[in-house]
């Protein structure tokens, strides 16, 4: 096999050549002749009655073509939500209207009120200044618990309250869990907040709408992680355009981290305006605008309880979480605190009884949806923090307490009490690997060294599991998904042997163009340079669900493998004909078809040429051509898992935390490109450490976003991060997809926050500050200092 380009080779990412030399073609690089520019006037108050929007003066300004308000969208649908959660009483969630432009009320700072379309962006922006908006301010609802009190102002007047749903999982276990706590030898409780985050991809969102009058064809160029999903949602639910008349293109996309999964109002608005005005309309989000219009992440408030028996075996887990939905339901928002969170509450442990309660709440804040990890980081954080707390309260080693309760390799497939079945794993192995790589044995010596310098040193550990490779369609359908979650691929073999793969997955930084080509290269035995990966355009790729939830290789890659197997089967038939042998005797190796046990062979190109120039070809039984499409629907989730270790030093004088070392020992199953995997883990760790130490989205008491720029929202920088030790040599291949892969995109962001916080608490405890048992993220110097000094 060509290890230089096949599975397991650290092939350099081919796409980086264009990204690093400024040759990428992003949505903002797309300019269409005659294009107009859109600017959105947004609410500057968090909650108010929208009495009137006077646009006449703006409409009369130079260059202005049209000013759109809610009234212009009266005939179209609202922005749809893609997941319906059923609450613990069997009732479906409360689902508010989500108009394209604010209608009757404004519900968060940043809620779009009007769209000005003009010849230039400056003209559109100037005209927006001339729009007179009459708003009667209403008291905003910001605190989730206050929002649920009787008499609280309602975000949506048409709903009975601010409660989206009250979800219980597994509801039938509620009583049994309560009983287990009553009889337990130990009962540990921890209240914590999973801080709200802003995704901040490097490229802000952009949407360009185009319309071809003579054909009725709409095109939307947009910064999306899943162009087919946008086509489906916007075409079917908002604008009423059949798929055949709507093309959605997501070209090079500069990061998404979840925030570019969703269908946003701006996409529908420019598509709608392009048709009405018969001219292309472009909108480019500014960075300031992104802070108040991109869906945000996390924002859970949780009470977590763990029951243990006298021998420290976990007996039961009970959680009560308030999850902030923000002002509207973003595309997948309801599924994040429920099915992507409650199902992971078993972690790597054999806890027999679990009950998860989640109250999803509407507030006058920016909508919240999936952000790298989505629900799984929240579950992992709760679990790994409370296990550390339990170990401390019980006076046992946190590593040993974990080991004692790990699901063991002989227990797989393992049915958790929270619906999912783990197919495979080996948690003792990743823990061993972590302790080895992080030189855990040498910690005591390093601790002494820090002490000499007056610094507090700590070591924190976290083990995580995630459910990736989403998802079995029939299962998610039962859970409320309004879509299937299969993936697709068309493999087109060209006449002279090169291959073009059209995938429904979408790369916005993951490196599919490189790693997908490696898989084909391995399967057929041709150079990966012969394989081209095409994605991001609904006009040439088969219907696919896009990229999120670490699903691309596990689901999209499997679809490609399936299609390639069809190609290989057909190619063998052609080879059998040309070699006058039985199909069963044809072997494919290193790009050569050989009759088993003979030296008779045909090259890959002999076969592909024969398929397209079928002069000597079994036409009566075989179609010419060599192109196959496959759809792959996974039979289970994949379950990457790993052990993360963080070593910190805390300056007791200032509260400043410095991460000295961070080690990640992951089990991602089989790995196609180790270099790409390492890069994915690095990025995830940066975001997880960012959440733990720096990032925090803060609204003031009026609902104004205070952390609304990079001056106040602290993104991690190179000097905040250590050099990582990353390992993925512990491999238990996934048992149900053809590649045995599990997914690696989110792991870093899931496993690292609890490792960091555990390390900080460990440092404070070892330093004698034994009253500090928890500090909410971000563990900033001010919070650490206050925790040390507030006795």
């Amino acid at each position, binding site marked *: 096999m060509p290890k230089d380009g096949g599975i397991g080779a650290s092939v350099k990412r081919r796409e980086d050549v264009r990204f690093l030399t400024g040759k990428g073609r992003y949505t903002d690089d797309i300019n269409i002749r005659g294009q107009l520019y859109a600017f959105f006037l947004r609410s500057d108050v968090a909650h108010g009655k929208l009495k009137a929007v006077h646009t006449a003066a703006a409409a009369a300004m130079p260059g202005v073509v049209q000013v759109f308000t809610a009234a212009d969208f009266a005939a179209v649908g609202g922005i749809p939500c893609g997941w319906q959660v059923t609450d613990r009483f069997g009732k479906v969630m409360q689902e508010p209207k989500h108009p394209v432009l604010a209608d009757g009320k404004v519900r968060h700072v940043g809620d779009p009120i009007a769209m000005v379309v003009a010849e230039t962006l400056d003209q559109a922006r100037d005209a927006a200044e001339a729009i007179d908006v009459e708003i009667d301010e209403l008291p905003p609802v910001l605190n989730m618990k206050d929002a649920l009190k009787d008499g609280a102002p309602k975000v949506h007047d048409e709903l009975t309250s601010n409660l989206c749903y009250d979800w219980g999982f597994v509801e039938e276990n509620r009583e049994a869990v309560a009983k287990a706590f009553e009889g337990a030898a130990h009962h540990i409780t921890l209240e914590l907040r999973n801080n709200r985050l802003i995704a901040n991809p490097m490229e802000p969102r952009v949407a360009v709408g185009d319309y071809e009058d003579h054909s009725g064809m709409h095109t939307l160029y947009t910064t999306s992680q899943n162009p087919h999903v946008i086509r489906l949602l916007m075409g079917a639910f908002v604008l009423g355009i059949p798929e055949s008349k709507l093309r959605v293109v997501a070209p090079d996309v500069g990061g998404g981290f979840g925030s570019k999964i969703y269908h946003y109002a701006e996409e529908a608005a420019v598509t709608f305006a392009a048709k009405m005005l018969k001219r292309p309309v472009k909108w480019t989000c500014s960075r300031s605008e992104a802070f108040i219009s991109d869906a945000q992440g996390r924002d859970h408030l949780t009470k977590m309880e763990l029951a243990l028996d006298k021998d420290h075996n976990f007996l039961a887990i009970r959680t009560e979480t308030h999850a902030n939905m923000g002002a509207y339901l973003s595309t997948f928002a309801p599924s994040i605190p429920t099915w992507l969170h409650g199902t992971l509450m078993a972690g790597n442990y054999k806890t027999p009884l679990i009950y998860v309660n989640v109250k999803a709440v509407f507030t006058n804040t920016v909508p919240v949806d999936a952000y790298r990890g989505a629900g799984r980081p929240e579950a992992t954080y709760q679990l790994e923090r409370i296990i550390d707390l339990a170990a401390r309260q019980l006076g046992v080693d946190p590593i040993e307490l974990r080991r004692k309760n790990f699901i063991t390799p002989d227990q797989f497939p393992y049915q958790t009490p929270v619906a999912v079945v783990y197919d495979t794993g080996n948690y003792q192995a990743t823990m061993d690997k972590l302790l080895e790589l992080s030189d855990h044995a040498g910690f005591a010596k390093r601790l002494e060294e820090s002490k000499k310098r007056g610094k507090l040193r700590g070591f924190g550990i976290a083990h995580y599991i995630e459910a990736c490779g989403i998802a079995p369609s029939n299962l998610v359908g039962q859970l409320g998904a309004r879509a299937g979650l299969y993936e697709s691929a068309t493999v087109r073999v060209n006449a002279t042997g090169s291959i073009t793969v059209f995938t429904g997955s979408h790369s916005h930084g993951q490196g599919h163009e490189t790693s997908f080509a490696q898989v084909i290269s391995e399967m057929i035995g041709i150079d990966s340079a012969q394989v081209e990966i095409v994605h991001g355009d609904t006009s040439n790729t088969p219907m696919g669900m896009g990229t999120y939830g670490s699903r691309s290789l596990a689901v999209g890659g499997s679809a490609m493998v399936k299609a390639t197997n069809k190609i290989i089967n057909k190619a063998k038939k052609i080879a059998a004909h040309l070699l006058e042998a039985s199909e069963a005797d044809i072997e494919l190796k290193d790009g050569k078809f050989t009759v088993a046990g003979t030296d008779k062979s045909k090259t890959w190109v002999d076969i592909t040429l024969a398929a397209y120039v079928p002069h000597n070809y079994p036409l009566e039984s075989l179609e010419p051509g060599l192109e196959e499409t496959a759809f792959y629907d996974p039979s289970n989730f994949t379950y990457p898992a790993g052990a993360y270790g963080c070593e910190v030093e805390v300056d007791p004088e200032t509260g400043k935390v410095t991460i000295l070392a961070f080690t990640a020992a992951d089990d991602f199953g089989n790995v196609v490109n180790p270099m790409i995997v390492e890069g994915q883990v690095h990025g995830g760790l940066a975001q997880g450490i960012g959440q733990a130490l720096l990032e925090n989205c803060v609204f003031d008491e009026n609902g*104004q976003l205070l952390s609304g720029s990079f001056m106040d929202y602290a993104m991690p920088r190179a000097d905040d991060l250590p050099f990582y030790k990353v390992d993925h040599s512990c491999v238990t291949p996934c048992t149900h997809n053809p590649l045995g892969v599990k997914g690696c995109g989110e792991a870093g962001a899931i496993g690292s926050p609890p490792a960091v916080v555990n390390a900080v608490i460990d440092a404070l405890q070892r330093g004698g500050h034994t009253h500090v048992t928890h500090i909410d993220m971000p563990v900033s110097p001010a919070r650490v200092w206050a925790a040390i000094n507030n006795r």
Partner: protein
Amino acid sequence: MKLSDSRDIAAAPEVVWSAILDPEVLHQCIPGCQSMTGTVEDGFEAVVKQKVGPVSATFTGHVSFSDVVPGQSLSITGEGKGGVAGFAKGGAAVTFEPIPEGTRLTYDVDASVGGKIAQLGSRIVDSFTKKMADEFFARFQDAVEPATEEELAAAAAAEAAAAAEAEALGEEVVADSGDHKKGWFRRMIGG
């Protein structure tokens, strides 16, 4: 945001009172004020151009007065809209207390900002407000406090020099070019 402070002004309470309710005085004293019109009964209409951190905006606003106890105290509420830059609004309770040196003016301000100003400038809004207040009172004191002999002499010299320069350039000499000199309000009302 809350701001409480007091200023001692070397002028009698009635002078301070009438000055602070005079649109022309406010126009001169509020930094960046482009216009100020209206009456105490109906409130004032104001246009103020300011830069808060990275955000520049022209605010158009309305200020109204309530709980007016002439010469003693009043409440001010106001709101300024800065278009896409956002808004600022708030209120102040002001009292005027006679002291041997003149008047002690005490104020409690409660203000808030929204939109882009809050998003980008929240960290500097407090210091910005303090700077605005300092500048306002510096100008206000200039307007209502009597000038010292030295200041009058310096002002006269400066005026003479400006007139000479203007004459040399062949320009018409205007007695009051709009640059108010110290104590102008006091002189205007005959104080």
